[in-house]
Structures are given as C-alpha cells and as structure tokens.
C-alpha cells in the first residue's frame, strides 16, 4: 500500500501524531502560535467520535482535560507562553493526582506577552519547574515534522505509562514551518493504552497503590470503583493525609517514577558524531541549524557532530556526560539565554569547555551564527 504523504505545518504534524496515538478529547483556548492545533482538532476529533471544546480560558482548558482523562480518555491541550504560565497550577495537580495528559507548548518569545509571532525556546526551565513544589515531569521536543509526529505519539505513550503530564515543547518556527510528513501505517508505531485495574467489583481498589512494576492501574469515573482524587497529599485510597510518612512516600514516588526511568524515557539523535571533537547540543528548530552547520563543516573535514535532544526532562545527564567526554568543546545551541547550557555545564567533566551559541531576538538561529562562535573557540577569529 502506498504511504500517505502530507505537506503540512508542524502544528498539524502534532495533530496527526495525536490522532494516531488515539487522542479522544481536547480542550483549549486560542493563542499564537499554537492555535492551529486547536483548529485542526476541532474538525478532526468529532469525525471520529472525539470531543473538542474551546474553554473560557487557559486554566479551564487544563482542568477540563484532567477531568476528561479521569473518564478514561486520552487527552491533550495546546498553548504558548502566557497560556502555559496560566496552566501551571493544574499541571501540578495532574502531577500530584497522577493523571495522564499531554500539553503542547509551541514556544514564542517571553516573558509576558513577549513576541507572539516569533520563535523562542525560553520555556525550557518553566516546563521543568513551572508549577510549585517538588515534582517531576517529562518534556519532549522535535526538529522536523516526521519527528514531531512520532514524539507526539511517544508523549501519549509516556503519559499513560507513567501517569503523568507530558509537555511537548515545540517552538514557533517548527510549528509554522511547512514540510513533508509521511504518515506511518496503523501498527507501525507502538501505542500504549490506558492500564485499567483488574481488581473486581466489591474488592477494595486502591488507586494509588503501585504494582510491582511501579505502574498504577486506573479505574474510569463511571466504572465500578469509586475513589477520591485530590491535589492534597493522599494515601493509597486517594484520601487526604498529612501523615509525615504518607507525605514523604508519595513525594518520593512522584520523583522516583520518572528519575528511575531516565534511560527508557530519554530520546535523542546523533548527527555526524563519529569521533566528533566539537559537539553541538541542540533541540527543536535550533537543531536544524546545528545539523546544517555540522554537515557543511564535515564536508570540509572538520570533526563536528550534533547531539540532538528529543527529551529535555528528565534531563539526560549521563548521556550528555558520555557523549561530551572526548570533545574539545561543547556548544549548546538554543534560542534563550542559556537555559539548557547550565544543565550541560553541570553534567560534563569540564564545565569550562561548554559554550553557548544563542539568539534571543526572535529570529531563528542560523548556521552562520554557530560558525562564528566555533571559529572564536578554535582561535580562528570571526
């Protein structure tokens, strides 16, 4: 059978990925530059019996998808900087109550209203620490439409596997870029469904008692088990508790379920990394410029490679350390003031060899920008 090929925006590739993963419910609010995700799903979801709702604000959208997830549905919302800020309290709720959900943040310039129609990667640390209190989170990204599709599928899979919100951290450039997407056939990519409890009717179901493999089987609202869901610290029945042991056990569980699985959550790509003396670390649309630059320099015999991160949180510290161990210099390429760079510096043996190639003016970083910095590092002048 011939493959279905589309020429679409990155935001539409995200929609295709979400539909492939089985999204059934979307709640959102208009915001540039993510609005196309809502627009497309308002058309596509009801075609397959799914539900779309435009809520009164960003907060309500986040709350509505959490409510829908509790009925057993695969859910998502999409937003950008200001909306992402507004959603943070409810994202923390989903962390605490362990509700699977996917939040796409198509990044624009910030802070505040910032630069709505221009690219930025300034929400990297907000994705990790936007909501208050200790917690853990998964954040994924991609630099081309084929990867946006598959990483979106991954986002739904990881949300179900770890019962956690998963952030898709795209950016304006990739969200609005049009390029080719080859739709995978059904069954080509794995899909993780909702894990439902096998505890029978009349038996005490403990919604927050993990199985031996650490997963927490769920029971849909409306099904035979009635239990409490709360943002307060809670015991294994979901009932509020401030017992110190219950509090610390739950917080440790929330941290450990992600931290202990960094290896299986980490997603990355290597480009021209064989024997690379100079390692560029990048992600999202910045990675396209890094890859372009590395390809050109390789043709001229320079040993330059790109480590493209597709999972940003949990931070793949060991991967970074290993891939940078032999590098003369590491250049982090990103469109913010060095948000990833600080984490890379903390991960490598010699922080002094880590440099930042960035742009914070709303313009896409170019291969020439990166090349300029590389020449300075190499002592060759600009």
């Amino acid at each position: 059978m011939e493959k279905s090929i589309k020429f679409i925006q990155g935001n539409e590739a995200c929609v295709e990925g979400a539909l492939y993963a089985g999204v059934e419910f979307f709640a959102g609010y208009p915001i540039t530059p993510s609005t196309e995700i809502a627009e497309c799903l308002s058309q596509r979801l009801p075609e397959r019996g799914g539900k779309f709702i435009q809520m009164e604000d960003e907060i309500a959208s986040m709350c509505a998808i959490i409510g829908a997830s509790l009925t057993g549905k695969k859910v998502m919302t999409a937003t950008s900087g200001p909306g992402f800020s507004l959603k943070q309290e409810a994202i923390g709720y989903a962390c605490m109550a362990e509700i699977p959900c996917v939040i796409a943040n198509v990044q624009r310039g910030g802070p505040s209203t910032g630069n709505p129609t221009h690219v930025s990667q300034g929400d990297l640390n907000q994705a990790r620490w936007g909501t208050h209190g200790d917690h853990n989170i998964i954040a994924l990204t991609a630099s081309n439409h084929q990867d946006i599709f598959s990483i979106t599928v991954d986002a739904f899979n990881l949300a179900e596997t770890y019962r956690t919100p998963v952030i898709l951290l795209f950016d304006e450039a990739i969200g609005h870029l049009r390029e080719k997407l080859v739709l995978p056939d059904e069954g080509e990519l794995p899909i993780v469904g909702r894990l439902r409890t096998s505890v029978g009717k009349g038996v005490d179901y403990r919604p927050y008692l993990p199985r031996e493999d650490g997963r927490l089987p769920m029971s849909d609202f409306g099904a035979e088990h009635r239990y409490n869901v709360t943002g307060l610290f809670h015991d294994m029945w979901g009932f509020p508790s401030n017992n110190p042991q219950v509090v610390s056990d739950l917080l440790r569980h929330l941290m450990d379920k992600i931290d202990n699985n960094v290896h299986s959550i980490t997603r990355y790509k290597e480009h021209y990394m064989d024997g690379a003396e100079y390692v560029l670390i990048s992600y999202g649309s910045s990675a396209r410029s890094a890859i372009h630059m590395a390809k050109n320099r390789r043709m001229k015999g320079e040993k330059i490679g790109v480590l493209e991160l597709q999972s940003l949180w949990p931070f793949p510290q060991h991967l970074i350390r290993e891939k940078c161990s032999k590098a003369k210099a590491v250049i982090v390429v990103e469109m913010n003031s060095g948000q990833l760079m600080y984490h890379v510096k903390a991960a490598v043996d010699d922080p002094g060899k880590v440099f930042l190639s960035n742009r914070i003016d709303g313009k896409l970083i170019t291969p020439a920008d990166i090349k300029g910095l590389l020449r300075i590092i190499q002592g060759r002048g600009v």
Partner: protein
Amino acid sequence: MAIKDYLRQRFFPHMWCPGCGHGTVLNSLLRAVEELGIEKNDIVMTSGIGCSARISGYVDFHSLHSLHGRALAFATGVKLSQPKLKLLVPMGDGDALAIGGNHFIHAARRNIDITAIVMNNKIYGMTGGQYSPLSGVGKKATTAPYLTIDNDFDVVELAKAAGATFVARTTTFHATEATDFLKKAIMHKGFSVVEILSQCPTHYGRKNKEGDAPQMVANYDKITARLGSKKLEENPALIGRGIFVDRQAPEYCEEYDKIIEYAMKGRK
C-alpha cells in the same frame, strides 16, 4: 438505601466546625440522591478548595477534589467526555464566585448538564474568615477590620443573566425544601444552580454578632420568604427563596453529539 450508605464512613469524623451549615447541605443532598434512586456509580462529585469542597471526600461517589475555583472546569471535562454521568458540583461562595466566577458564568452560558450548589456562608472559612464576594457591604472580616465596602453578587441574578436554565435558592433552615430543590436541579437537563445559605458561626457569625449556630439558622427563616408568598409581598426587602428559573434549552453535550453525527456523516 440508608443515608449512611452514601457516606465514606471511614473518613469521618469530618473537618467542619461544630454548628457549620455544610453538614446540613450534605444531608439535604444525600437525601435528594436517595429519593431519586440514582446509582452511586453514575455520580461524579467535583469540588474546589475550601470548607465546602471537603464534602466530596465524604461521599461514596466518584469524587474529584480539584483546585480552588476550578471545580466547574474539571466537571465540564468529565461531563463532556462522559455525558451519561451526573455531575454534582458543591462550591463555596469564594470558590464559586471570586476565583471561580469566570467558570461559573461560562458553564451557565453553555447550559451544560451540571448541578452547581453554592454553599453560601458569606466568608472564606478555611483560611480563617476573610470577606468574600458574597459578604456584602458593612461586614466584618479578618481582612475587613474597618468593615467591607465591596458590593456583593446576587447569585440568582448572576446565574439567570449568564444563562442557567434552573436557578433556586434556599437555606439550611429549610433542609427539606433544599432536598426538593436539589432533586429538581439534578433531574433538570441543563445547567442548574442551587444557592443554599449556610451558616459559618465560627468566622462570620461571631465577628458580625449574628449569634451562635442555632440563632444563625433561625435567622434564615426570618430574613427569607418563599417566592409568591404574602410575607415576601409585604416585605420585599426579604431574600426570596424558591425556584427562580426552570426552563428548557438545548443542552451542551447533546448539541455536541449532533456535531459528531454531522462530522461522521461528512467523513463517509
């Protein structure tokens, strides 16, 4: 089924103060559910944060104790994704109409089939007695040591204007009337609002010299009158009790089902 069969007894005693009206609201609500014979599995109770919100932990329904002010937004997600479920959303006055005011008017505007119960004690109780948007002018609160200058909302008028298709008001003095209104609200197809004046002797009554719990409850009979009653006619300044709105209008989830039907046909 006995009332106690609707309670999660292992989570008692509850955390409400002695004399609090919220237990009376819970009683009226459970009697309404019992008299209607609704299956426990068909009910989702969604609440926000505050004294009122703790009600969801005590009932043996599916329960979602959510965020301050956001109960109706969570409930909208539950209801739209699974319309066969009955959504009961008890909220405090600050929860429903200060931080949650936007969700309140928009849920009413959509006419989504959810029952909102505003447990109005005119104060933020859990945080220790700060004035709420329903306190009204001239009241004392921990954040109004010189008395409030804020006007209050009229829940009934607000719900009517926002498009709620069932709106009623009663008090904890009128517990059987509350059960009756709640039964009608739950069976109503569309967004229903029941405001129940509920005493907070600890933080409101004490500061505003309204007496102890029995006095506050008894006062509800004095300051209110049934719609259409002679008492109200002769004393129009009294607070009206009764069903203010009960009309039929297209319900949100049913309208969305029509979209699905149309979209699926278009696809074939």
